[in-house]
């Protein structure tokens, strides 16, 4: 035996670290508090030179122009006259903006607690023409909440940033968490999700643009409806440039989306879907409440069928990922037609019989929904190489927004979408 060799081995064993080393890396949401003066915020709505997409939120279409929300910062106006090469026209700086609606040449936008009306007759030089102060009391952006402090005239805001942290773990916690902290209201998603082929409601001579399943703003006749987390605000827009705070309807917590269709308002909440009769636009009346568990849920409607998605995820507490078809022929008593399992459905859009469904990081799915009982067997296509958050079907064209950018497709053949253009996040066109 060679004693030196043996010694070497023993020393080596002693030196070896027999500790398992496990590092868990997480991308975590971090909040930081900030206070803004309303007096200052109200001077900041103005047109600026076009800029690149950074964190796109909701989108809105009217005529040849696209309006893409930059979460909490403002709105990009994009000339989409040629879908193959959209051009940035202007960026409207609107602090605390998340939603958009356009009637004729007036754009309505929220700016934290205020509703702002902006004249976009000349899209290169939009200007503020009206404002309703202090109508929204609280709000959410990307999980961070803000609240209005009326006594001092300030917004208490939470900024959200994503930080990467690494911690040592015990190498064994491989199981996904089964218990949630439960009831954490500010987890409700407030990112965008748009869609609809038939969202343009009846108008009173004016022309509206198209929003979709995750919009919080809706236009119907002489009213603008804006849902906040627990209320629906009605603004009278007889004079489009000067919206007037008309009334407020309390609805209960977790209101997320509003979708006007056929004299009715379909309101998605984190617990279900409310249907309001809107025959008299000044006085929506609740007809029913379709409860379907706890999840995020944009709604679109075509004729007698409402398409509701539920998803789980970082922003929404819930345990279902599904598409529900709901019979709303009797809006006072909506009935479930069938539930279909999905991966992580976000926004959706219907151009009957084609349903476009965003699956987040799983891409975009296209279904033929002519047979309402076998939607899952009639999947026309699944495009996986993209992140899909919202979609608006305009018939032949399809607008899609995701974390990595804004896409336009030629959808004349829904089985074979052809990309017309892409505006990537963080890059100029």
């Amino acid at each position, binding site marked *: *035996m*060679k004693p030196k*060799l*043996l010694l070497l*081995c023993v020393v*080596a*064993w002693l030196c*070896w*670290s*027999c*500790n*398992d*080393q*496990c*590092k*868990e*890396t*997480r*991308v*975590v*949401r971090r909040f930081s508090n900030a206070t803004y003066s309303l007096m200052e915020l109200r001077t900041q709505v103005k047109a600026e030179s076009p800029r690149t997409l950074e964190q796109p939120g909701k989108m809105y279409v009217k005529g040849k122009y696209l309006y893409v929300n930059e979460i909490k910062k403002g709105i990009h106006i994009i000339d989409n006259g040629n879908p193959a090469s959209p051009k940035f026209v202007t960026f409207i700086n609107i602090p605390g903006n998340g939603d958009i609606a356009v009637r004729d040449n007036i754009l309505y936008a929220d700016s934290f607690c205020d509703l702002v009306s902006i004249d976009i007759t000349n899209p290169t030089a939009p200007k503020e023409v009206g404002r309703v102060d202090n109508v929204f009391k609280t709000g959410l952006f990307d*999980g961070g909440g803000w609240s209005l402090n009326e006594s001092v005239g300030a917004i208490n805001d939470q900024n959200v940033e*994503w930080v990467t942290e690494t*911690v*040592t*773990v*015990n*190498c*064994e*916690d*491989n*199981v*996904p*968490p089964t218990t*949630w*902290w439960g009831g*954490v209201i500010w*987890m409700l998603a407030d990112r965008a999700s748009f869609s609809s082929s038939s969202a343009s409601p009846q108008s009173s001579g004016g022309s509206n643009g198209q929003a979709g399943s995750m919009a919080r703003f809706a236009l119907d006749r002489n009213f603008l409806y804006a849902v906040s987390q627990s209320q629906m605000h009605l603004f009278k827009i007889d004079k489009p440039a000067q919206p007037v705070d008309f009334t407020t309807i309390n609805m209960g917590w977790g209101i997320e989306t509003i979708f006007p269709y056929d004299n009715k308002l379909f309101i998605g909440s984190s617990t279900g879907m409310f249907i309001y009769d809107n025959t008299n636009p000044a006085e929506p009346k609740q007809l029913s409440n379709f409860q379907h568990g706890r999840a995020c849920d944009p709604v679109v409607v075509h004729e007698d069928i409402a398409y509701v998605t539920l998803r789980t995820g*970082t922003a929404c*507490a819930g345990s279902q990922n599904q598409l529900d078809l709901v019979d709303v022929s009797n809006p006072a008593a909506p009935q479930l037609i069938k539930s279909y399992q999905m991966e992580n459905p976000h926004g959706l859009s219907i151009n009957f019989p084609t349903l476009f469904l965003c699956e987040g990081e799983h891409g975009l799915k296209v279904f033929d929904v002519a047979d309402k009982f076998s939607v899952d067997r009639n999947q026309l296509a699944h495009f996986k190489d993209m992140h899909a958050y919202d979609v608006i079907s305009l018939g032949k064209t399809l607008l899609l927004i995701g974390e990595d950018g804004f896409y336009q497709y030629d959808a004349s053949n829904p089985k074979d979408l052809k990309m017309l253009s892409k505006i990537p996040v963080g890059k100029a066109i």
Partner: protein
Amino acid sequence: MKKLTFILLLFLAGSGYAQKAKNVRFVNHTEFGGLFGRVKYENPYAGNANQVDSKTSLTIQTFNGIQIHDKLSTGVTLGMDWYKTALLNPIAGGIRYDFVAEKNVKLFGTVDAGYAFTWFHDDADGADTKGGIMVNPGVGMRVGKPGVAAFTITLTYKRQEAHITKVPLWDQKERYEDRVYNRLALRLGISF
């Protein structure tokens, strides 16, 4: 890159087969034993204080190869390691080197290096476990007459990497774990 390394190692190991000498001697060395280690981690339920736990896992492996030299054999090692939350199958190129020849009790060196797969592993919902590089050097003792079956006991150091994608918690959008098992492997086996 990891896979490439693995293929290279396999190739090196396999090259032993190619050198067919006149009297090729087949070598088998099959072992089972335990992987012993600890883990020191920040316990989130105790104010992130460091906590130490002991770890023990079952391991089996079989080395099959040929003797290319009086003291040296080379081959392929297939194994199965039951870690608490990962069932890994390392496939490695290996060598066994006898420090002395022609004795009833021999000290030998052993090295295996390769890549572990997760073919038999079953993930919890939403999780995705991937294996990684494995290296396993050490020494052992072979008790038995030369040329016939013998008992072995080996003491080795085993380093095994793994990567686990986990379901993000409510305030997260991405969560994964890079895991390195550093274990003392004590194995009993037979070889012939």
